[in-house]
């Protein structure tokens, strides 16, 4: 049998996951409205323009993190409903490719969602930003997306076969992605210029995001097969 390598498997798995999402439109019809509602709820709860402008970065990333759980759960639901994930393992398919493919699909969905959330958040909270600030925010979004995607898919695989996985995932992932929330928030605040912060103050936080993504990307590649088998 002429099986594909890691890259080929990753590509087909990513296309399959994106096709399933496009068919069901769960991100567009459910996750996006949920995330937007969370941000509107924050606006009502805080009820102060000054506070909202200062906390806008953190609020956007909190909404993003909540949305990550929904996207990852949806991604695995399609794989475990009829035992497809186990079949992939049983068929000797390259599980590193499966990890990369699922991560890629989750990241694409997450990045597009973030683009909308950032625009909604900045309009809703009346945030102004310079051109270089937008540049930093874009890099921050890429770094955070990589980290959230790798961690989400790795831990999603860990509990794919478990009962109560909907509640288990946030419980396991929230503490792990705390550095992403912190670093992305600080970088975004620097991009906006909250409390006198400058763009230069944000780059170390952006660096943390990419280091985090690198660690979990590598960790996921090395351990995904065992994690899914467990």
């Amino acid at each position, binding site marked *: 049998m*002429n099986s594909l390598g890691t890259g080929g498997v990753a590509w087909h798995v990513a296309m*399959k996951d994106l096709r399933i999402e496009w068919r069901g439109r769960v991100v567009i019809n459910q996750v996006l409205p949920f995330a937007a509602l969370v941000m509107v709820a924050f606006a009502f709860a805080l009820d102060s323009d000054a506070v909202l402008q200062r906390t806008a970065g953190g609020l956007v990333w909190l909404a993003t993190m909540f949305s990550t759980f929904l996207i990852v759960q949806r991604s695995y639901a399609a794989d475990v409903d009829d035992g497809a994930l*186990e079949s992939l393992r*049983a068929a*000797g*398919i390259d599980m590193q490719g499966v990890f990369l493919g699922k991560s890629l699909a989750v990241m694409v969905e997450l990045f597009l969602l973030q683009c909308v959330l950032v625009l909604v958040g900045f309009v809703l909270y009346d945030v102004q930003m310079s051109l270089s600030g937008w540049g930093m925010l874009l890099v921050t979004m890429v770094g955070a997306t990589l980290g959230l995607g790798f961690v989400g898919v790795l831990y999603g695989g860990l509990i794919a076969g478990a009962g109560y996985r909907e509640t288990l995932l946030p419980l396991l992932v929230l503490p792990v992605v705390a550095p992403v929330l912190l670093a992305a928030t600080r970088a975004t605040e620097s991009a906006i210029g909250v409390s006198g912060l400058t763009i230069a103050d944000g780059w170390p936080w952006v660096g943390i995001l990419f280091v985090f993504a690198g660690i979990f990307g590598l960790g996921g590649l090395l351990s995904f097969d065992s994690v899914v088998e467990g």
Partner: protein
Amino acid sequence: MSAVIELHDVVALYGSHPALAGATLRVNRGEIIVVRGPNGAGKSSLLRLCAGLVAPSRGTAVVLDHDLSVDRDRVGKRVGLLGQRNGLFLDLSAAENVQFWGQLSGASAAEMSEAMQRMGITNSLATRRVGSMSTGQRKRVALACLVTRRAELWLLDEPHSGLDASGRDELDEVLRQAANAGATIVLASHESERAERLGARVVSMSGGQVVS
């Protein structure tokens, strides 16, 4: 005749429960074997062990010349397991499922198309979402995926369940064709008459052991 499966006194544990308790079995290339036995006899565990999904805790287990104690990761590529679930993506169409599995296995478009035709998946059925199909139709899609993978050893857990009479006969024909083409087939089934129709050797299991 060369052995595709050779198990000797194999024990496999789920936690502390022995799913297989000293199973011994030899299956030759091109054979069709029907494994019978009551629920909990170890039929599904035997198939999962042969697919490399369960490690033997004791005994000798060699499948397609791979010793499962040390080498079970490499068995999967040569084995097609159709378990109690079909391993399909319910939100995709039948054709998209076959295409996905075929692409991962390096099958050509012609091979995928032929596999679907062999399983009677044509026209409207091919473009239908698997989640909206009957149990029998899903089984046919799963078997088409198996055909595209060109597995040497087919391990099928109750493959006839959910199929109507004509579907069962069609499946028997597919299994005979696969065996004639050199595939070895092991299927777990409650139906004794099915073995006769397939001209298969019957093996009985009880308490995690092969008893006859």
